[in-house]
């Protein structure tokens, strides 16, 4: 594989296929699937230190599927995906996390959750101060701490 590409073309295709199974597109919520090209590009661009574990998970996936995941019929694809999830372990956890963390920072997805697609800083957030009179029954209690 090229030095700047952490995955082979076959692994990239399997990553897109499994991502699309984990989080499929939804008309109901008007969101893309995790196999969306922009989200896939984010995964490949930011794989970084997760690359070895993700490759390991994709190797497991390839062995379970016996063929490109995307070429399998839907029932077989589901069976393989669920078998991969059942394998578990650090590699599958890393693969799943990479899918989730890139999906849930996509602007379209973030907006669909009613959130703003921005970092926390510098705008921050506004929080209700709350009703401190709720403390009244606590204030009325005698000291709880032991003198020593």
């Amino acid at each position, binding site marked *: 594989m090229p030095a700047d590409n952490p995955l082979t073309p076959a692994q990239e295709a399997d990553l897109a296929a499994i991502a699309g199974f984990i989080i499929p597109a939804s008309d109901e919520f008007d969101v893309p699937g995790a196999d969306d090209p922009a989200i896939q590009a984010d995964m490949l661009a930011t794989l970084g230190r997760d690359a070895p574990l993700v490759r390991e998970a994709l190797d497991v996936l390839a062995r379970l599927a016996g063929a490109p995941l995307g070429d399998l019929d839907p029932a077989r694809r589901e069976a393989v995906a669920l078998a991969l999830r059942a394998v578990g372990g650090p590699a599958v956890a890393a693969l799943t996390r990479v899918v989730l*963390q890139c999906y849930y920072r996509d602007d379209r997805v973030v907006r669909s959750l009613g959130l703003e697609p921005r970092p926390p800083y510098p705008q921050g957030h506004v929080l209700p101060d709350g009703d401190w009179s709720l403390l009244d029954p606590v204030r009325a209690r005698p*000291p*709880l701490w032991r003198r020593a």
Partner: protein
Amino acid sequence: MNDPVDVLIIGAGASGAAVAWSLAETKMHILCLEQGGWMNPAQYPSTGRDWEARFWGDYSPSPNIRGRREDYPINDDNSPIKVVNFNAVGGSTIFYTAHFPRLHPSDFRVKSLDGVADDWPVDYDTLAPFFAENDRMMGVSGLAGDPAVPPRDPPMPPLPMGRSGAIFAKAMNRLGWHWWPSDTTVATVDYEGRAKCINLGHCTPACAQGAKASTDITYWPVAQRAGVELKTHCRVHEITTNGDGMAAGVVYYDADGKEQFQAAHVVVLACNGIGTPRLLLNSTSGKFPNGLANSSGLVGRNLMFHPYAQVYGYVADETDSNRAPPTCLWSKEFYETDRSRGFVRGYSFQFGRGVGPIMEAVTSEQKGLLPWGAAHHAVFRRLNGHRLTLSAICEDLPEAHNRVTLDPVLKDCHGIPAPKIDYTIGENTARMMAHGIARAKDVLAACEATDICVNSPILYGGWHLLGTARMGTDPESSVVNEWGRSHDVKNLFIVDGSLFVTSGGVNPTSTIQALALYVADQMKQRLANLFD
């Protein structure tokens, strides 16, 4: 050849910064060596769209995962709780929740009151003025009048209760249990050059606003203006001794990786409960074959973590999610000993506001709550922004077999032997954790939460590193005396969490820093006969 200094402090974190600031008024030549560097807030996670993802990368709480050059590896395979820390100017105050309770008076009299462990050689009243001084220097927000703790007067008002806090508060009132807004070191008003909190939320892995106190922005600027010298990216290999058995100085690797020797009249260790025993055990010589200051054999022993029993669930109402500092309230309902509970000592509850969407997705997928496939979206929308979390911070009693040693194989990037952790959760603590989980479930039931999940212990929850060079009056059962000086080496002091005789059931940073200020004050009072 470096000129000798009067005082050499190793470590620029919570305790090292406090002791440097306090000693500065003596006008002695004070130098601090720190293995990390100055952090750049413009690069903190909350400034970028990848703010959550960096938790699993360069801003992981685990040095083993983070793997920055400033970090050293830790073999914690033989522990159900993994060590977390941060290595930089500011130390782990860069990367902490800023929850800032104090130990209780009873925590210093554990043997006398409850017949377990040992009493401390100092008490709450002795430390009280140093707690107050530290509150002012770090900038503490909170609310006076809590009936569960001795009177104190936080200089800033508390953090907002928020949606999550209000749900918890009403539930705790229904149960008739104590709760109170937490003391934190998050500035709620502009304070001593720090801008007030704007609820970035993702502030445990460093605060880009500078509202959360870390010692790089509290103690250090003042200490440096007073003349304290701070050298970064300098990792100490060993403390050397002279023919009289006194500390002569340290051997360290400078920022260029060159080995250097720094002579000092006084050496102060402020490297936390893992780094300090590691350095002492790496400092062997003919006179000290088992490590420096280790005639008691207790260097590295009695490691205490505070096992966390974390329980969370989901409510119908919207919670604060990631939109505020992560902690809001505490409860001391189960803090003081009640033997009818089946254990002695106790725990605090720390109430969390919620988590961001990616943390929600990753953790609920791991728990099996969040499905793969078509049902994913609907389930995620029910979970995201609806989580409530609380954790029981359980007192860990000292047990000699819980210890830090040197790993025979693992080394850091300078070739210095790395620490190895052997740790098990004690029986009393395990019963306490079970109690905490049950009561936390009661709280979540009172919140009408569903889908209850438990993390006990929190795997990457070894934030509090305590007890591995304990203080005491007897050289056979302690490493340093009642004011932090080594029993064996009269010009060697320890000021970090290693000093703790017992752990209490609260986050320890406030007490660590109060102890550091107390030790510094004792040193100043005894300058004429410091080594007698």
